């Protein structure tokens, strides 16, 4: 029988989702449930003079209206959970509801509770708020200037943090043979999972227990933070992430609305539901990226990179979000040298408060920005020394014999074969033929371009001691219990919390394969703090590398125990027992055997257990990885730019990814496709646009371009498999490869296509207008 690990089985979660029997947060309906709607500030920066809720309160169907003052003393502000040391961090918590001042357009100032969502919305219109509008500041660079408006009185220059890692003397750049300097803007994007945020809270006044269903990627983190915010012990606060309709980082953060809904459910002793509208999602759910990157690369004329220095001026938005301090510093900074053996590197990050929606992790969180600057810089370097961009990459890629590789930024890349992934991608592509065609087509006035991205990223954070050293207020280990029931079926518990990844399939594949039981006999439980003892959730491509490893180890414990029972029943010693495909057999005597199901029954009945073996058949593992994992690969993008309209068409997209052990190739490829669509989205179409006054202009799907099916050709995806030594599966993590690799591959391709026009650099998104203007001004120069 073929191994289940590595097999493209259909997903276990699909039948319910395909038939409309999923249960998303908005699908939950409780007896007596009322509905919440938030009144949000229309101003980016204003003092709140007066909030009058009288008329709203008297509207028939309205249960209650709360302002920030009404909630004072009932709940705390919501804090961040990443307090990076050594950077003079000035964390600013999100107030439950704004009381004295609003700091971004969309910040909540009041909440209506009503019998249904229509009435709740009606009542919002009846609340009167007097604001004294203050000057707003949107750009992080302007916000740091001395005359800029201050968001928080005790944060001079709006500077929330200043982080430095590494130092390179100026002489290194002054004496270098070649220096490339470029300013790049990695623009603000809006995660936009198709399910917005939402929460349903139910409080039991008798027991004091609170159940909060919410759209969470990490219910245990939500419990940890909200327990303190709400003053409810963890024993009495149950967080359930039901089916969650995508997250992409946006559902990691602990926001205020979910906690407010719980707080009010306790106040009014009725279940309360809140479902974010899409236009609220645009304003009130964390945004991603928004980093101004100034990169300086030194090298030799023959293509060696000798030093890299990067300054990142990052827009944190109005408050410090959950992982907000970590994304532009640790997540970004540690990976600036990318897949290249660059001997010296240094990073400076400014984290700045502005009158915008707080920023936090978005699929990749810091790594896409790091990859973007190095992959763009390499192309600029190649241009400057007149060398092929593939050749420059080849010269500088970390060689195979250097692993585990200690980078200049002080991290250790676990394993890799970077040239192999590059070779495989080039083989699929046929580079030489393309350059020929490019030349021919240019004669005909058709502008083709190719872009490369030989990326590496860091995922599966660990060990927890490192998390502590970098100020993350939590652990990064993962937990799993594997429970074999008396009848032989298996329940697997995980502290990761899937929201589209297919974990209910992949984790069950691991267990079914190891135990030798049918996949249909194994079920996964996740996303409920009452069922799963502890865990840290799904983000940072950690689910398989850390959570899957815990599942694998917990299964090993089950087998270990079962082996003892089998040996006892078969009247032999443990070392005489072989376990293959669900059968415990005495070595050399096939007639003496027990199935895992038989042992499950024996273990659970406990009529005849060996000395010292406790009843039941269950294993638990708490896996704390020894290091991060480093997936890598090569993406190649081919574009055609329309000279007349500036439109960019993706002609081919080749992705060779190495994510270590692949548990399910079908699901792995799905992750690759989705990530690439989002990465190409950032490169070409997506971008949050604010007015100078802090109004979000790209605040609906009419104004914010989401990638559509017709924007893409079929993606050509392939894998190489270099196992990670960091976990027992050898897995590396896959969720963020596309958003990390794609933006520079696409932008490099467009810049390559635009070479005949002498266009040097353009910032994402490369909209037709931007490209058309660049072509025109390039031509004007001629």
């Amino acid at each position, binding site marked *: 029988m073929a191994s289940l690990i590595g097999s493209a089985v259909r997903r276990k979660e699909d039948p319910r989702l*395909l038939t409309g029997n999923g249960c*998303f947060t*908005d699908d939950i309906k409780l007896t007596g449930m009322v509905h919440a709607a938030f009144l949000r500030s229309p101003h980016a920066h204003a003092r709140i003079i007066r909030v009058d809720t009288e008329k709203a309160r008297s509207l028939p169907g309205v249960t209650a209206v709360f302002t920030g003052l009404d909630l004072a003393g009932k709940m705390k502000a919501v804090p961040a959970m990443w307090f990076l040391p050594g950077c003079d961090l000035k964390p600013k918590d999100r107030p439950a509801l704004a009381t004295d001042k609003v700091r971004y357009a969309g910040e909540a100032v009041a909440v209506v509770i009503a019998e249904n969502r229509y009435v709740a919305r009606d009542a919002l219109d009846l609340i009167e708020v007097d604001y004294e509008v203050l000057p707003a500041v949107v750009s992080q660079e302007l916000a740091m200037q001395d005359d800029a408006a201050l968001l928080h009185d005790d944060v001079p220059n709006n500077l929330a943090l200043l982080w430095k890692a590494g130092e390179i003397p100026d002489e290194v750049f002054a004496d270098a043979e070649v220096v490339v300097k470029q300013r790049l803007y990695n623009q603000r994007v809006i995660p936009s999972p*198709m399910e917005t945020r939402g929460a349903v809270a139910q409080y039991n006044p008798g027991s004091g227990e609170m159940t909060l269903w919410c759209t969470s990627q990490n219910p245990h983190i939500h419990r940890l933070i909200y327990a303190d915010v709400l003053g409810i012990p963890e024993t009495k606060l149950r967080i359930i992430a039901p089916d969650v*309709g995508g997250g992409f980082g946006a559902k990691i953060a602990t926001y205020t609305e979910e906690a407010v809904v719980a707080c009010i459910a306790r106040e009014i002793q009725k279940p309360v539901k809140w479902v974010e509208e899409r236009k609220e999602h645009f304003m009130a759910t964390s945004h991603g990226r928004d980093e101004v990157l100034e990169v300086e690369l030194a090298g030799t004329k023959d293509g060696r990179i000798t030093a890299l220095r990067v300054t990142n001026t990052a827009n944190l938005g109005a408050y410090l979000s959950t992982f907000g301090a970590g994304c532009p510093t640790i997540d970004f900074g540690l990976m600036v040298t990318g897949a290249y053996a660059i001997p010296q590197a240094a990073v400076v990050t400014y984290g700045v408060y502005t009158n915008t929606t707080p920023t936090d992790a978005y699929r990749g969180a810091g790594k896409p920005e790091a990859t973007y600057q190095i992959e763009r810089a390499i192309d600029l370097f190649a241009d400057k020394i007149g060398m092929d961009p593939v050749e420059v990459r080849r010269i500088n890629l970390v060689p195979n014999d250097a692993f585990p590789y200690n980078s200049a930024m002080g991290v250790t890349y676990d394993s890799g074969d970077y040239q192999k992934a590059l070779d495989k991608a080039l083989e699929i592509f046929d580079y030489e033929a393309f350059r020929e065609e490019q030349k021919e087509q240019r004669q005909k006035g058709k502008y083709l371009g190719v872009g490369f991205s030989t990326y590496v990223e860091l995922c599966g954070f660990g060990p927890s001691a490192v998390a502590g050293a970098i100020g993350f207020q939590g652990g990064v280990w993962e937990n799993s219990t594997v429970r074999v029931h008396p009848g032989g079926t298996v329940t697997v518990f995980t502290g990761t919390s899937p929201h589209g990844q297919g974990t209910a399939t992949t984790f069950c594949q691991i267990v079914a394969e190891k135990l030798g039981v049918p996949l249909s006999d194994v079920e996964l439980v996740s996303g409920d703090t009452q069922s799963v003892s502890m865990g840290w959730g799904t983000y940072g491509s950690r689910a398989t590398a850390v959570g899957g490893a815990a599942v694998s180890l917990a299964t090993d414990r089950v087998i270990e125990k079962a082996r003892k029972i089998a040996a006892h029943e078969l009247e032999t010693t443990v070392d005489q027992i072989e376990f293959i495909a669900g059968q415990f057999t005495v070595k050399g005597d096939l007639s003496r055997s027990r199935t895992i199901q038989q042992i499950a029954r024996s273990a659970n009945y406990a009529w005849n257990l060996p000395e010292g073996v406790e009843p039941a058949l269950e294993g638990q593992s708490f896996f704390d990885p020894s290091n991060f994992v480093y997936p890598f690969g090569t993406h190649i993008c081919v574009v055609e730019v329309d000279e007349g309209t500036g439109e960019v068409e993706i002609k081919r997209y080749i992705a060779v990814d190495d994510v270590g052990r692949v548990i399910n190739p079908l699901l792995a490829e799905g992750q690759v496709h989705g990530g690439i669509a989002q990465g190409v989205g950032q490169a070409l179409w997506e971008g949050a646009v604010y007015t100078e006054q802090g109004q979000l202009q790209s605040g609906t799907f009419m104004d914010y371009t989401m990638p559509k099916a017709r924007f893409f050709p079929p993606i050509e995806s392939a894998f190489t498999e270099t196992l990670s030594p960091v976990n027992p599966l050898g897995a590396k993590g896959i969720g963020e490869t596309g958003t990390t690799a794609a933006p520079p591959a696409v932008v490099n391709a467009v810049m390559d296509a635009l070479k005949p026009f002498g266009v040097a650099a353009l910032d994402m998104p490369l909209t037709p207008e931007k490209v058309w203007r660049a072509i025109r001004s390039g031509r004007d120069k001629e």
Partner: protein
Amino acid sequence: MAHQAEVSMKVNGAESKSVIEPRMLLVHYLREELNLTGTHIGCDTSQCGACTVLLDGDPVKSCTVLAVQANGKSITTVEGLASKEGLHPIQMSFWEKHGLQCGFCTPGVMIAAIGLLNENPDPSEEEIRLALEGVICRCTGYQFIVDAVKHAAQTLREAGETKVAMADSMKA
């Protein structure tokens, strides 16, 4: 109190009758009144298509239709696709081809695909991509959705179905 309107429609083959506020959207009627929560709401500007249902056999965005406008009409939601014999070919194809990840967009996407296959039983890759203009999926990058639609088209053609069989609702 706002005035009330009576609506009746056939949903997935079953007659329903309710007294509702005239401003109630069809999607809320299905989800809140009839507890058919398989149809989702992904936006408030008629862009995402998560709410797509069949109204008298044609795909419509149920967030953009008032429940009263559907009065007397026949509706098929995702709950009406499978029959006692099992999953509808479109559901089967999405399963086989991994056309869904989080599954939030999926009911609307499948219904939109049925709309396409009813008009064009043998669409090209290009035609499928164009036909999906009205739906947004953030998870899949669309490729496996396209594969699923292609596969469903083939299955249906091989089964000799000219019009995509629609739950009991349309047969009834």
